[in-house]
């Protein structure tokens, strides 16, 4: 094994400098460049400074009615130097003639003014436009937020700053009502997004668009969150339909930062993170307790231990005997009496990660630029081998005015994402680690692996997967403006290439089960192998569109948009694997002699669309918009290929009406929308029947023979799903816009869902092909409320804000080909997530209760070899027929089951609390789920929840040991000790009321305390902020304490808590 390790190390030291190192180096180089650049700027300013000395600038700040504003913050842009206005709205500040002053006040629009030669600057601040006049990126353009008529939500860059998370998704979780984000604890996690609940039974995720180019959830996970200026969520059909059929379940529009200020802005930020393991079972490790417990559990099938072994375990537990001994009955075998905590043996309690990023931006006379770099190293939990993600991002954005009316721009993103992991990781491995019996040991006295040491530590070291993604995306655009900017024409082309290579190997790990050298065995593959795979993905995306906007008679604002879009994607993968490595330490297919396999796969799809939008605003009060898009897809039969996606919306800003002018509403706006979108839910080649090909499992002449098999069936006609969404909403603002709120209700029909058709008799011999046969209704609402204000503490402004959002959705099947109402398929009227289960009726306490109670044979675990006994769970005979059964598994006859809960998460919420005072800033962010049920019946639960109740070859949790049924503890958490009762779909592995878990929770997702150093301490350096941050710090939940509310049904990668410190400098 040492060889392999050394090899890996040598390889990386040769040509793989660590990513953090790389990023740091690059940051250093850039910093040097910048310091030099700044030096020359300073020199220049000294040259011209002879007649522009530092001077005292004074003035008065008022509102539009001339009322002085006390407490207005005045900052010299790019520095932390500043002052506040006094009670009369007056201020005085020492500044250079070249400085720019920024005036800001809560509820007012900030103003930025150059000093130039002036000594007095009087400023009028206008009422805040933050809510009303904020410009929002929407499909193929921008709009004032006030003028939106669809359901749209926006978050700004602050959501992504200083959170010790490395993906956009993790930062977005909980920030927007009904934007649901699911991620795992893995360093390489790709969070899943969902907008507004169940989409289609065949799956459906929101469209991701980054800077106008369609992207994937993986792109979002790989990109630098600090590049993001804003994320717009288009929730309803009216808002999304300009993106047509790809947008049927909402859109995430990501916009990256650009050069905005005349002054060069440089931001550098670093943070380092410590991650610890989240919830894990506590184990009973005392061998003297564990052996008898497992022995009883294994009855009547196994006699695991003898009395002599119990006695020996007792001596080991007392410290009087060695925990490994040679078996008294077999001199070739070791026996183990250890107290091994396998989780600690294999997993690190703590792992360390770091990130660094930097960006430079500026707006120039004839253009702008934005350059950023980011390096991230994310470490996982495994103690041996690697579990590390390294990411490196560069973004280069620039635009240039070729003429007064023509602008050329380029936006290029280059990234590398490498994930190096052991071959043995994953859920199966985690389960093994959790399930390993504590009395076994990883190593023998002679230092060799035991079988279980070989499976855990040995397998971690024995093989490796290295996945390396190298990608770039570059977009070129020309933007022309005509007729005094009333007509804008944009043409862009975007090209994305992603090359992924994966190298892997796996080797057998040797162990011994006894002192004699012949007692050697191997874990892992029978022969060492190495493999490689390369896959290339290419996207080409083109848009041409024109926007015309004009205002007639000062009241009729008309915008017309028309355009064309096309996109194509190809995927090409080749791979090879070969066994029989010449040396296990040199894992390359070239250095192997055994069986080899090569593979190739290819696929391609394309879409085209033509779209148009008409938007009419009358008197800034009445807004009407219609959208239409005509979409074609390569995935359907030619005749079923095209779909038209119309939508319409209207909005009334009532607060602008005269009769509401003096009301307490700063904003009262009603919105209503309706739209119908096609959804493409089919594989690239869904219309082609393929013969199955591959190796037969049978051998002839020692080799697998090649076989072919019949193609599956394909429905003679199928096409787009149709999604019809209705939305009504209201937006509100009160108290000088300090209190804002909005509420939306939606109703979404997913019609003609692509799902298996009517169930047919199995003589068909193959799966019933999918067809457009099923309907679904999803409905829900979302609400958010935000309060922000400020007041003075010790003459320093204390600013604070609180934002709460809450969303709900429910989904029901409205059409499904299931005439018998079978419970094993969807049925009409079913709510998605229903949990059917038995009603537990406590434990049997006496034999009489068993003898005279209802017959449990159908649901009992191994009733004939292990008859029911006191301490076993008992079910209520709901239908009173004397037999506990599943009936005929239909709605009309479900046996003794009923709906006992629902597994969908409802009432998703987020609460964001912020405060700033005297250089300090504090943020606390909670996220949670208000209602969810969970029955611990999954694979993972056999290890984390049931443990020895699932298998006697298992660890024993403290709860297992201390809280099971005995005649003295008749209402214990667990039943009487018996294994295999939590697997096999019987008894306790059946969904039932007793162990049904309330999976709702509130989790402190993030808390950050930051401090911006006072200006006199950081003179001439820039603004320096230091912060400490914690992620997933604690949760409140009624769940069984070993389960993580965000990792139920998980992939086994444990959820983690993160502690971080970091610093940022703005030059």
């Amino acid at each position, binding site marked *: 094994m040492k060889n392999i390790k050394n090899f890996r190390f040598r390889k990386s030291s040769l040509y793989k400098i660590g990513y953090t190192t790389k990023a740091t180096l690059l940051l250093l180089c850039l910093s040097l460049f910048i310091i030099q650049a700044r030096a020359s700027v300073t020199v220049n300013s000294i040259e011209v400074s002879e007649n522009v000395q530092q001077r005292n600038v004074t003035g008065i700040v008022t509102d539009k009615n001339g009322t002085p504003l006390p407490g207005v913050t005045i900052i010299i842009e790019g520095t932390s130097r500043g002052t506040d206005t006094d009670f009369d709205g007056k201020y005085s500040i020492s500044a250079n003639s070249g400085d720019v002053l920024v005036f800001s006040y809560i509820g007012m629009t900030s103003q930025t003014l150059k000093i130039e030669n002036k000594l007095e600057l009087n400023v009028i601040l206008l009422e805040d436009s933050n809510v009303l006049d904020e410009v929002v990126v929407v499909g193929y353009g921008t709009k004032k937020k006030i003028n939106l008529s669809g359901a749209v939500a926006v978050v700004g860059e602050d959501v992504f700053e200083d959170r010790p998370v490395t993906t956009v998704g993790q930062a977005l979780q909980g920030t927007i009502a009904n934007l649901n984000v699911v991620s795992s604890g893995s360093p390489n996690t790709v969070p899943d997004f969902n907008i507004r609940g169940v989409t289609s039974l065949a799956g459906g995720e929101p469209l991701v668009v980054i800077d106008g180019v369609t992207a994937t959830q993986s792109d979002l996970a790989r990109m630098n969150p600090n590049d993001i200026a804003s994320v717009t969520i288009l929730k309803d059909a009216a808002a999304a339909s300009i993106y047509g059929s790809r947008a049927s379940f909402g859109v995430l529009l990501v916009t990256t930062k650009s050069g905005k200020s005349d002054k060069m802005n440089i931001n550098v930020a670093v943070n380092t993170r410590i991650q610890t393991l989240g919830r894990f079972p506590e184990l009973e490790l005392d061998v003297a307790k564990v052996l008898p417990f497992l022995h009883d559990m294994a009855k009547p099938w196994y006699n695991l231990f003898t009395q002599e072994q119990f006695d020996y375990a007792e001596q080991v537990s007392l410290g009087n005997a060695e925990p490994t001994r040679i078996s008294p*009955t077999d001199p070739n075998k070791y026996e183990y009496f250890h107290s091994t905590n396998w989780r600690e043996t294999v997993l690190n309690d703590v792992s360390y990660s770091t990130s660094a990023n930097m960006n430079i931006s500026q707006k120039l006379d004839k253009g702008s630029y934005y350059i950023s770099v980011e390096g991230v190293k994310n470490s996982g939990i495994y103690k041996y081998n690697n579990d590390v993600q390294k990411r490196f991002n560069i973004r280069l954005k620039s635009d240039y005015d070729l003429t007064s009316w023509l602008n050329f721009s380029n936006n290029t993103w280059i990234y590398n994402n490498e994930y190096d992991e052991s071959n043995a990781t994953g859920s199966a491995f985690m389960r093994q680690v959790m399930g390993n019996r504590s009395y076994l040991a990883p190593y023998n006295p002679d230092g060799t692996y035991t079988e279980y040491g070989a499976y855990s530590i040995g397998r971690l070291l024995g093989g490796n997967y290295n996945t390396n993604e190298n990608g770039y995306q570059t977009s070129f655009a020309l933007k022309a403006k005509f007729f005094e900017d009333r007509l804008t024409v944009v043409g862009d082309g975007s090209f994305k290439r992603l090359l992924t290579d994966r190298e892997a190997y796996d080797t057998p790990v040797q162990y011994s089960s006894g002192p004699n050298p012949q007692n050697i065995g191997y874990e892992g593959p029978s022969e060492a192998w190495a493999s490689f795979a390369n896959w290339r993905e290419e996207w080409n995306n083109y848009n041409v569109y024109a926007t015309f906007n004009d205002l007639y008679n000062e009241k009729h604002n008309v915008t017309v948009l028309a355009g064309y879009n096309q996109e194509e994607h190809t995927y090409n993968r080749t791979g090879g694997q070969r066994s029989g490595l010449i040396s296990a330490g040199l894992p390359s297919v070239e250095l192997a002699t055994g069986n080899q396999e090569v593979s190739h796969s290819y696929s391609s799809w394309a879409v*085209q669309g033509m779209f148009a939008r008409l938007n009419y605003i009358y008197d800034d009060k009445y807004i009407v918009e219609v959208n239409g898009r005509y979409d074609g897809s390569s995935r359907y039969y030619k005749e079923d290929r095209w779909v038209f996606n119309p939508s319409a919306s209207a909005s009334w800003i009532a607060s602008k009406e005269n009769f509401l002018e003096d009301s307490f509403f700063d904003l009262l706006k009603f919105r209503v929308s309706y739209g119908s979108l096609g959804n493409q839910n089919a594989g690239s080649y869904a219309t082609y029947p393929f013969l199955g*090909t591959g190796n037969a499992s*049978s051998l002839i002449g020692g080799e697998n*023979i090649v076989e*072919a098999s019949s193609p599956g069936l394909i429905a003679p006609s199928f096409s787009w799903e149709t999604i019809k969404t209705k939305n009504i909403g209201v937006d509100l603002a009160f108290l000088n816009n300090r209190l804002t709120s909005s509420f939306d209700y939606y109703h979404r029909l997913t019609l003609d869902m692509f799902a298996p058709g009517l169930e047919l008799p199995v003589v068909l011999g193959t799966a019933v092909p999918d067809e457009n046969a099923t309907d679904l209704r999803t409905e829900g609402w979302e609400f958010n409320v935000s309060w922000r204000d400020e007041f003075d503490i010790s003459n320093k402004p204390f600013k604070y804000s609180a934002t709460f959002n809450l969303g709900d959705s429910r989904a029901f099947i409205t059409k499904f080909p299931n005439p018998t109402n079978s419970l094993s398929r969807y049925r009409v009227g079913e709510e998605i997530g229903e949990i059917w289960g038995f009603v537990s009726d406590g434990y049997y306490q006496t034999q009489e209760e068993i003898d005279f109670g209802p017959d449990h044979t159908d649901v009992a675990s191994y009733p004939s070899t292990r008859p029911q006994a006191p301490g076993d769970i008992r079910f209520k005979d709901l239908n009173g027929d004397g037999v506990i*059964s599943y009936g005929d598994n239909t709605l009309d006859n479900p046996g003794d089951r009923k709906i006992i809960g629902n597994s969908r998460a409802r009432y998703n919420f987020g609460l964001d609390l912020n405060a700033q005072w005297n250089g300090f800033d504090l943020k606390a962010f909670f996220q949670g789920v208000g209602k969810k049920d969970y029955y611990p019946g999954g694979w993972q639960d056999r290890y984390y929840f049931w443990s020895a109740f699932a298998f006697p070859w298992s660890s024993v949790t403290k709860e297992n040991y201390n809280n099971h049924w005995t005649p003295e503890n008749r209402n214990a958490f667990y039943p009487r000790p018996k294994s295999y009762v939590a697997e096999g779909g019987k008894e306790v592995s059946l969904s039932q009321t007793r162990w049904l878990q309330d999976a709702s929770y509130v989790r402190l997702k993030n808390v950050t305390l930051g401090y911006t150093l006072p200006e006199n301490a950081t003179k001439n350096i820039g603004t320096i902020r230091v912060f400490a941050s914690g992620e997933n710090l604690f949760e409140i939940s009624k769940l069984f304490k070993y389960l993580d509310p965000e990792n139920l049904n998980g992939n086994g990668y444990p959820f983690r808590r993160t502690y971080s410190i970091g610093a940022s400098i703005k030059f």
Partner: protein
Amino acid sequence: MKKYILLIIIFAVTLVGCEKDFLDRVPETDITADGFFNSTADLEIYTNGFYDYFGAGSRDNSTDDQTRHSEGDGLNTLLKGNLTVSNTGGWSGWGTLRDINYFLANYDNNGLSESADPAVVNHYVAFARFSRARWYIGKIKDYGMVPWIDVPLNVDDDELLTKGHDTRDFVVGKIMEDLEFAAANLSETAATRSRITKWVALAEISRFGLYEGTFRKYHEYAGLSDADLYLSKSTNASQQIIDSGNYGVWTNGDPETAYNEFFIQGSYNGNEEVILQIEYSYAEPRRTHGVVVYWYWGLSKNLTDSYLMTDGTPFTSQPNYDTKGYVEVFEDRDPRMSQTYMSPGYKYPNEENDYLVRATYGGYTQQKFLHNDEDESQWSAETDMAAYRYAEVLLNYAEAKAELGTITQGDLNSSINAVRARVNMPGLDMATANSNPDAVQAEQYPNVTGDNKGVILEIRRERRVELACEGFRRGDMFRWKNGLTLAEPQLGMYVPAFGGIDVTGDGVPDIAILNSPSETGPIDALPNKDTLVKYYVSDGTFYLTDGDSGFIGMTGDVNQPKSFEEPKYYYNPIPLHHTIINPNLTQPAGW
């Protein structure tokens, strides 16, 4: 200025100058349905998949050959009365039939038969029809009746999809048509014993003809005729194999090891007894089997009693045969017994110590098929397996002839007695057998009557012994309509009293059977009382038939006794769900 406008126009035209077929995307790394069956090589590739359908018979789970049964086993569930239409599995595997029917419907789609050698094409067609016949044999054995489908179905084939059962006569007729086509058209030779030949098809006719013939003869309630027809088809097929001279009973020359060694060979290429082998390999590409996982079951006293003495007389005729000690039972028995069981003194591969039987499984442990290769574990063995072997054909031949009433001593000599010769057992004498049918056998098989009663009983004994642990027992007991015997609780070794027992033959007790851990009286005097492997009745896994002595019985058989409802239990129920989906499907008799 103008050049920029030009630029925009060029740019826009380039973008929108979309290809006419932009939305046509064609797969490049898959075979589409109309691109195959171009050559006989394609036929071979497609039919290669049919080899996956062969499985070697193994394990006689839950029959009267075993003591301890895994609870998940279907037969055990049935016998315990726990099988219902709601919890039964099965009525599955229709994808296999579809694969076969798809081949038969499409192999000639591209006009292959015009260019290719018809004999070669017919070989593959015959393989497909053979595979279909075998598939339907499985269904007939399970359900008695089944809808006959011989085309790949589509979603709109309503009539075929919702079809009810065809009669057993009809389906068996179709099976025989397929098998006879296969026997007539399959190639006579193959490069390896792993490939199918005409002889494999004949061996299947020999096997299934006997099955169907005896089923029809003994299951009188079913009102089926033609028993003799199928028995004749069986004997004819067997006769052809015998007459070919291609096959024989393999031996290494040593009656004490030949039988065991036959089942643990690395390859059967060149082995005259094997008609079709299934290959297994521990090296890549790995394919292993686990036919002997000895701690899943024990062998029964009932099977043990069936083995003759070396002189050809029944063990059950020995005085006190019912109270013989463990080691004694193995003395002077048909050599196949110690080559099927882990007999006293047996050492498990790689172990220094003698194997110690486990009382919790009854005490008799299977050795047959267990390879002595140290690389192999029991559940991933790489010994090749025989799917059809000549000795079975000989046994089929003798039984079918006996049931037909046409058997002669000459037939016995060329069949049963040829099999017995491998282990040097005396031949079966027809006259002796028929003049004095063995009483114990007669009690075991009460349905056997007629002039050949004695010889049929001995042929059944021979079959049970020779084919032990090869997976035939359930089917044999079912076709002989002997289900009631399967319901009897099966017992293990004899325990004369609580205390130590020698199971290795060295005269020193190795294990102890005690009432409970505290009742150590019976072994207190033994010098090795601490190292004895102890089994306690109080653990609740087993009991002794006379309380403190007797045969080991399984507590589970007392807690929930087995039963056999005739004729219901000779058939499997169809899972309820399938009869709801297709109401035309009716449950087999009694269900």
